[in-house]
């Protein structure tokens, strides 16, 4: 039987070079979806194979890797991907946003500002922002080539006509470098402003759909809107029950059968850092570390 042996970070060097070429092209044309020969990875499509391939291609031995899902380092799929790279690349991993050089994420951008030495790798399920308006790839590619985004504006306008505001809460479309309309992956629109003029390199990998795209550092990223209906960031009506943060994205947690609920930061590193600095929320009179491992 052929006993398998695997290269550093799983992928063979030839594949990594192919992916890096796609990444370079993506950086050169911000927001443009570059087709690449996505490989079958040892985790299922739709579970981060695009992000994993991008991470595998850029990871070096000195990198420090952080993996989050829904903002948390401790969700099952984040753990699974982090372990995958611990095993196949042996790189140092961290949960600290500030310490990481590569952060792979699903559905969130960390609350702490990113810096120029970092790369944020997004896992992308459907890279095509126009997909639900036009199912055909042949059509959407033509629309991008011609900068023909009327359909998207009509969709947003119809929301306003119907609801009085744009009714898209996540995967809110953005225009990158004043050229390509891009899907930010299913991050809540709360995170959109963080993409604009960000010092870190942002890479997006869609494995099943075989596309890579990028936002180079310090690139303009504008959420689509209208002059009389400007983009607004989602605002929670509550503060974090653990760290009292009033400007982070919150998860809603149902606490009993009567439907009582509490709100806590979705970004666990941000929340824990704040708590270690002495911030306390309504549910967290006791030190957090004790209640966590109770």
């Amino acid at each position, binding site marked *: 039987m052929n006993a398998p042996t695997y290269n550093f970070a799983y*992928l063979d060097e030839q594949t990594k070079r192919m992916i890096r070429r796609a990444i370079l092209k993506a950086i050169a044309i911000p927001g443009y979806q570059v087709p690449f020969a996505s490989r079958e990875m040892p985790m*299922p499509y739709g*579970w981060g194979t695009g992000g994993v391939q991008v991470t595998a291609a850029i990871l070096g031995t000195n990198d420090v890797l952080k993996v989050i899902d829904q903002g948390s380092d*401790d969700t*099952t799929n984040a753990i699974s991907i982090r372990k995958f790279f611990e095993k196949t690349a042996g790189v140092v991993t961290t949960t600290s946003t500030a310490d990481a050089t590569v952060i792979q994420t699903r559905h969130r951008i960390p609350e702490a500002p990113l810096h120029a030495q970092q790369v944020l790798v997004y896992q992308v399920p459907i890279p095509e922002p126009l997909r639900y308006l036009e199912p055909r790839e042949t059509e959407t590619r033509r629309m991008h080539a011609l900068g023909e985004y009327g359909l998207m504006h009509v969709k947003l306008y119809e929301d306003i006509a119907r609801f009085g505001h744009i009714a898209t*809460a996540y995967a809110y479309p953005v225009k990158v470098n004043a050229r390509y309309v891009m899907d930010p992956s299913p991050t809540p629109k709360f995170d959109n402003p963080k993409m604009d003029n960000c010092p870190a390199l942002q890479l997006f990998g869609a494995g099943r759909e075989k596309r890579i795209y990028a936002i180079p550092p310090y690139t303009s990223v504008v959420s689509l809107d209208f002059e009389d209906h400007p983009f607004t960031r989602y605002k929670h009506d509550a503060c974090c029950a*653990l760290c009292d943060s009033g400007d982070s994205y919150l998860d809603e947690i149902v606490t009993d059968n009567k439907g009582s609920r509490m709100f806590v930061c979705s970004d666990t590193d941000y929340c824990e850092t704040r708590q270690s600095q002495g911030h306390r929320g309504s549910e967290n009179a006791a030190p957090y570390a004790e209640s966590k*491992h109770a």
Partner: protein
Amino acid sequence: MYVAVKGGERAIENAHRLLAHERRGDRDVPEVSLAQISGQLSLGVDRVMTEGSLYDRELAALAIKQARGDMIEAIFLLRAFRATLPRFGASEPVDTSRMQVRRRISSTFKDMPGGQILGSTFDYTHRLLDPVLAGESMPEAPALAEAQPLAMPRVTDILGRDGLIESSPAEDADQPVGDLTRDALSFPADRDLRLQNLARADEGFLLSLGYSSQRGYGRNHPFAGEIRLGEVEVEFMAEDVGFAVPLGAITLTECQMVNQFKGTDTEAPCFTRGYGLAFGQSERKAMSMALVDRALRARELGEDVQAPAQDEEFVMSHSDNVQATGFVEHLKLPHYVDFQSELGLLRKLRKEFHEAMETPSEMQEAAE
């Protein structure tokens, strides 16, 4: 309380441990061996090799065992392994007219050179559960005959001599063959890529699409020109030695569908082909593939593209069960964050709706 909603490394480890335990089943029952799976569940192994795109019976049997008999999971395991294998090059095209045939049937001619060879098949068996198989069984040894020393011409080649059927595309050694596992697919796709996609496609998906074409959604009047099963030699052109070296023999099922074509102003009416090829004995797959291949040639043959089976973007984008199962099942992953934004939006919309109900808006007044 709060900790409980987050997954833990411990939970994953324990889940995998439980999975291994359940895979083993009752420990008083002997463990199933790879040789048993390969030998006695051989059609399952054939399917996993076909859709896993890797001809290796032992690894396919291992995948089936590891996947607890879940075929798509087994296919996925084999594909993920295949993706890591170094690529030395492409083999010479296999010549199925030189196949050592074990089974060969045609529904278009009662007899032809080489004859009809029924071989092993479920066809014409009565589907009655056989209680004998519940215990140890020792079936009769098969009847034997001398192997045909002559090459068996393909039925479509016989038709081709009179020009009644379009000729197969001419072989061109300099023409590179596409590989959708090494290049991203773009549309419109040529037939080489379509066939590769169909060869890897989910058998059930192709079966339903082929069936739909028979029921009128993109009908193309098929006849099973020939289905053949047997062994063919695989040769590899070794640049160092300057000639093709035989690598061994593989079992293939080939299906050539013969379909109607009404002709155009410039082309005489003739039969056209739909082509299916699969590893091992995979007749349902090869036949379905041939039906869908022909349906997807609608554009090339100037037919109206109206049915799902004729729509290459639709078929090729959704045929791969490893992709499909991943994306469907990724809905099991947490979506707290998106759901939270939807929840916020929904609450806002409902609030606005109720407010509007209480105080008629200007627009409603104007309408009244």
